[in-house]
């Protein structure tokens, strides 16, 4: 049985950010993810917003780690070569009462050290956000808000962690954890492992994993959010991320855009019981359209090209990040809902410090590769650069996905970097993510995946397990 210093359970943004942080040190680290690929749980449905740190009480973990995480994200994005766009956000007021509430939010933000917060008036809004509703009278402007691709962020953390020696094991479900004098015995779907420390970053299932060592003091309540993506053609409808005033449970229906350039409207916020309920609803669409049109009246239902639902793993009002003294060596990182993506790098530092305080020696490796090998995305670079790439590798000139301009070379590289499913290819490259939704490129992508990953064509899946794209060869019928 292989024994690790640290086992991380969960391959979302929290687990992989922790893995990348720990990969600086001379430790044997393993990460287990139950799904076929990383980021297939909570992280894949994230809005991709890097929040500035407003809208959290100044004494909260959320507030402190969000402000710190915002700064760290910018630094790490440069190290890992991921596209981070600091577009700024506007929280919009529609009447005098709301304007006063914005001042409260500003003073909370100032107290947390959120940089550059300022009130802007109607004239400023008209000039800098022309499609915003003319009913808006003022806004709080937070210049440090930004956008990032949530799944590519996860893949980049994991890839860099792996380059620095962390073992990433996907498709491995942890089913039991037993405390032993030396640490933990972990039973997983593929065998048994030992670890001195266990970090529970299991997202929606963090309560179940915590329960495996007898700790049942929190429950994860899913809070569903439905999001709707609009055609890139409408990418110009907003310049900033646009927020209404927040309610108690959510930041409201927003008009934002993804780092890849699609406007996005949503999310709803609905408490549910089923941790697997990822369905969208007519009611969700209605609510989102109503909320989005209030902010930006020109948003149209006809521009919707995709929608999805995600579940926020909620465990009370704040994050749970703690060493469990009753089970020495067990660290819970649970209830990481919004602003978890922003806070992830700060949470990773926090967890490393918790491990150190609880007896794990953190000795720096002599060689730590802080950079990742950069990959190119044709949709994100000027045509001149595309021309140079094609000269070097003809595969960049072989366009597979016409809507998003993704080349065969990019698809092959995504597979070389770990994609094993159609969704994995989509999240890494954007192939199938455009307006035709894969109608034109699915067969070609299946063939490339089949060739490169040695999967029979009929065995290619959407997202692992039982999600085969087809039901066999014609001769099987």
């Amino acid at each position: 049985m292989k024994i690790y210093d640290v086992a991380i359970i969960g391959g979302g943004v929290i687990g992989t950010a922790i893995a990348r942080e720990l990969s600086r040190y001379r430790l044997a680290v393993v990460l287990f993810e139950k799904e076929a690929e990383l980021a297939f749980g909570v992280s894949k449905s994230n809005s991709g917003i890097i929040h500035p740190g407003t809208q959290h009480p100044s004494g909260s973990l959320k507030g402190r780690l969000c402000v710190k995480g915002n700064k760290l994200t910018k630094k790490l994005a440069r190290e890992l070569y991921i596209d981070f766009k600091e577009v700024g956000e506007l929280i919009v007021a529609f009447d005098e009462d709301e304007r006063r509430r914005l001042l409260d939010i500003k003073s909370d933000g100032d107290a947390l050290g959120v940089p550059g917060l300022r009130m802007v008036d109607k004239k400023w809004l008209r000039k800098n956000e022309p499609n915003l509703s003319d009913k808006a009278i003022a806004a709080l402007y937070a210049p440090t808000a930004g956008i990032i691709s949530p799944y590519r962020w996860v893949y980049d953390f994991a890839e860099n962690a792996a380059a620095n020696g962390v073992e990433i094991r996907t498709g491995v479900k942890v089913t039991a954890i037993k405390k032993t004098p030396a640490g933990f015995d972990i039973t997983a779907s593929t065998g048994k492992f030992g670890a001195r420390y266990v970090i529970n970053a299991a997202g929606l299932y963090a309560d179940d994993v915590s329960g495996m060592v007898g700790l049942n003091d929190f429950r994860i309540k899913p809070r569903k959010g439905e999001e709707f993506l609009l055609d890139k053609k409408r990418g110009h409808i907003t310049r900033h991320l646009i927020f209404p005033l927040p309610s108690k449970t959510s930041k409201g229906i927003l008009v934002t855009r993804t780092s890849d350039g699609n406007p996005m409207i949503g999310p709803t916020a609905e408490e549910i019981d089923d941790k697997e309920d990822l369905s969208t609803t007519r009611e969700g669409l209605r609510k989102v359209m109503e909320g989005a049109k209030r902010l930006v009246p020109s948003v149209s239902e006809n521009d919707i090209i995709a929608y999805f639902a995600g579940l926020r793993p909620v465990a009370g009002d704040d994050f749970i990040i703690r060493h469990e003294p009753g089970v020495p060596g067990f660290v819970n990182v649970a209830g990481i809902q919004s602003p978890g993506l922003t806070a992830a790098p700060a949470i990773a530092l926090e967890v490393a410090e918790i491990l150190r305080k609880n007896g794990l020696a953190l000795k720096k490796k002599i060689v730590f590769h802080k950079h990742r090998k950069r990959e190119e995305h044709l949709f994100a670079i000027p045509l001149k650069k595309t021309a140079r790439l094609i000269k070097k590798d003809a595969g960049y000139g072989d366009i597979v996905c016409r809507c998003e301009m993704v080349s065969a070379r990019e698809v092959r590289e995504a597979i070389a970097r770990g994609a094993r499913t159609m969704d994995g290819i989509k999240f890494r490259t954007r192939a199938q993510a455009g307006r035709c939704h894969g109608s034109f490129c699915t067969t070609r992508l299946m063939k490339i995946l089949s060739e490169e990953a040695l999967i029979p064509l009929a065995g290619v899946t959407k997202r692992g397990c039982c999600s085969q794209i087809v039901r066999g060869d014609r001769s099987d019928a």
Partner: protein
Amino acid sequence: MRKRDLIVIGGGPAGMAAAIAARESGVRDILLLERDQHLGGILNQCIHTGFGLEYFKEILTGPEYADRFIRKIRNISDIEISLRSFAVRLENDRRITYLKPGGLHEVRAKALIMATGCREKTREMVHIPGTRPAGIFSAGLAQKLVNIEGLLPGREVVIVGSGDIGLIMARRFTLEGAKVKAIVEIESRTRGLVRNVVQCVEDFDIPIYFNHRISEICGKDRVEKVVVEKAPDAAGSGQPPEVFDIACDTVLLSVGLIPENELIEMAGVEIDRRTNSPVSREVNKTSVPGIFVCGNSFKVYDYVDSVTADSELAGRQAAEYLRDTRW
């Protein structure tokens, strides 16, 4: 930058007919760009018959119909055919940038004919709620999987919408041994051709539910069922909608086609946001002189024969434009 008299984008039936007609009207320098590795476009996957009745007075399959034009165009030395060539940018001065394995090319056209075809409306465009499992296909993708790749997309199929590709795939699936459990059409009558309703649906006893819609797609990894309800207009106000489930592993969407005009939209050609067709007073013409659009990218046609006829006209229009403009 190299200049060409006429560039045709798209090597399906529209692009081939336009290029041939332009040549026959006197244009001597023509470049045709096709993104696929074959000419013929979507006809290549339409292995059923019914093509050519008008134009050739014969009954042909899609590949046979395409082949007549492929043979002809291949023998015209003034038409240069560039395969695997993907146009990525178009400026309103008719400068085109296209990618090919091995190179990025820029070329300027005196006249341009866009024959980029159309795409299918997706489940997302008609806002069908529910989950997002494997097993949801546009009818055209399912057609390609079966006819070109030899794969069987599903075994128990519900078809949403009664467009022609959906009707044809109802028969195709049945012949492949799959069970087509229903066609669900929100309107009170079919959107497809009568001959397809008779030959592909009625002859195989496939139930069609008119005035019904899918209110939810269910299933975690793979489609498990759809929930069907009476369309709100048909249910009458105040009446609760009749709701029933159909178990299935596959949902095909055949809810309409949209002209593909994103390239000319980038170039500033006026586009009707509702139909995605170019704003136009005359067939094949656009708001920018010298940029023509023909075939299904101009408007969605019922028959390929009409596509051919109107695209030949586009070739003649481009030739006339080249003749009448001072260069």
